[in-house]
């Protein structure tokens, strides 16, 4: 019975961590699928979102708004700024580089990330910031033997909603199907009359907004400080790559694998928790060299 309880705890922790992983990587996955670039600036967007949320939640709380309004305000501000920054980056940087090798774009996004790192520091200072008010206000709930913050469990719901929303948009709207077509074959889509450039701009905008949103949703859980974006990049990469790059289902599977790997090691083998994520990534790639949900590609002779 105790063993079962322990197991349940591990699963709950794993799922809740997986939900967070999915939220931070869904934007990256989308951008990779359409633009074929690993967007390192995603970590920067995450950090910006977290700082914006801290500001928004603080401002809303100071004006007497409740937890719901605080979160809404934070999310809105983060999404709006994320979309704006996304457009800005796409127009000024990425658009000029699409004809060059992908690795060049990768480093352009790395440069953007470095700029964001210091920009957030210069704007908000070196010390940590907090946005824990809404998380505290939502209270705790008992699951089995342990209590969990409602906010953390709500993140699982948010992750599922996000996954459903993105999948539905991709599969059942006109624009979503255009995006799917571009993911599958850029040139063919262009010749079918899809405005590939606009799709790419739009996707990057949405990806950036999802990045800031992820930061905003995480803000109430953490200390928002200099350098929080670095770890997020590698984690999001791991999730995206394990899933096979560019598919929402893959990202979900990747998030669950990495989440469970971390929960299991944190509980049972804390000494190796440090590299659980990389071990999971190496093992999955060793077994499935193209990730879990890879599309077969035509061989060009």
């Amino acid at each position: 019975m105790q063993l079962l309880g322990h197991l349940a705890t591990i699963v709950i922790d794993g799922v809740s961590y997986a939900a967070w992983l999915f939220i931070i990587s869904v934007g990256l996955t989308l951008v990779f699928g359409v633009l074929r670039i690993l967007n390192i600036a995603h970590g920067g967007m995450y950090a910006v979102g977290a700082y914006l949320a801290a500001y928004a939640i603080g401002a809303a709380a100071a004006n007497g708004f409740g937890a719901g309004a605080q979160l809404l305000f934070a999310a809105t501000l983060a999404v709006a700024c994320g979309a704006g920054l996304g457009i800005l980056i796409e127009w000024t940087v990425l658009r000029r580089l699409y004809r060059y090798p992908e690795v060049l774009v990768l480093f352009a996004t790395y440069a953007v990330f470095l700029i964001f790192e210091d920009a957030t520091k210069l704007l908000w200072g070196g010390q940590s910031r907090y946005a824990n008010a809404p998380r505290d206000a939502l209270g705790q709930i008992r699951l089995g033997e342990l209590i969990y913050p409602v906010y953390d469990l709500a993140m699982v719901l948010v992750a599922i909603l996000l996954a459903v929303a993105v999948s539905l948009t991709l599969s059942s709207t006109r624009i979503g199907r255009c995006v799917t077509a571009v993911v599958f074959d850029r040139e063919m889509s262009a010749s079918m009359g899809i405005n590939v450039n606009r799709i790419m701009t739009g996707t990057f905008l949405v990806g950036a907004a999802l990045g800031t949103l992820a930061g905003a949703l995480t803000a109430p859980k953490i200390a928002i400080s200099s350098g929080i974006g670095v770890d997020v990049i590698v984690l999001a990469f791991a999730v995206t790559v394990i899933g096979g790059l560019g598919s929402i289902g893959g990202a979900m599977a990747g998030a669950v694998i990495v989440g469970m790997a971390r929960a299991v090691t944190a509980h049972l083998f804390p000494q190796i928790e440090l590299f659980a994520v990389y071990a999971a990534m190496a093992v999955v790639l060793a077994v499935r060299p193209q990730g879990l949900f890879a599309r077969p590609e035509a061989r060009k002779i």
Partner: protein
Amino acid sequence: MTLRKPDTTIVVLLLLAIGASIGAWWIPGWIRFISQMAISAALASLGAMVLLRAGLLSFGQGLFYFAGAYTAALSYKYLGLNEAVLLILFSIAISGGVAAAIGFFISNYRGIFFAMLTLAISMLVYGIAVKVSLFGGSDGLNIGLISILGFRYRGPDLQLAMFLICIWTAGLMAMVAHLFLRSRLGKVIEAIEDNEVRLEYLGTSVRSSIHAAYVLAGALGGAGGVLAALSARHVDPGFAYWTTAGDFVFIVILSGQASVLSPFFGAFALEVLRTFAAANFPDAWQMVLGTIMLLIVLFVPKGLGHIFIALGARWKARGRTVVPAAMNEETARP
């Protein structure tokens, strides 16, 4: 390959090495040290460049940098080996060996999966190094006083001797890499990026070609690592962290991949940039670095080395000298 016409790249490498060796006496110590760091990074970047020529983006060069550095530090600490030349040879051999072993497995991977698997392996090693007390944990290991070719130099003399060792090791390794890239195998590597299937039909094993390139990249990374370790006399797990490997790839992006000389140029440029940013903007050096990186990527996307190529082409046009295609090593890659 003809005996009559000496290879320009090798001549330039030799001239640079001789020039730096003579100039060493007048260069201030701290610039010499920065140069040693740049040379070490350049060797590892050269490895990344060899792989990039095959279209393989490696985020795992840090692993070999780590392997080279730690082979030296561990041999010094536990085997009592303190001869620089032996340590260098040993470290290059070990990292080449590590690459040969991993190569069997990794030569199946392409594109982003190659990048991410190399990253994962490198980060696994980083994690292990942070945990294992034999490796000194996250504090790393110090390397005490070493002898160079039997001479036990101390203080400034040791630094100068180490600088010369760096120059010549790097020069020799760059020549090896150059000969490899010029060889048949080197040309095969470049063809891999274009079309693998075609190569297989021509009767070439793509896998073993990639494997060979990977071993060379490993040996180059190890050479860089051991030089960095002996220059800094300190190693730490950060050598295997993904951002270290990212730096190496960035150096190649910065310089372009026209010749084995390119990464040296890129590494020096990056080191000067970083020193400039850190010295003048201690609060925002990342921002300055990022902005300059961005400007370079945007406005000189073929790499800074391209400026030289363009200059060279202009000179050739002015002098109206006809350059035989075979001698024109520094053609920009499309």
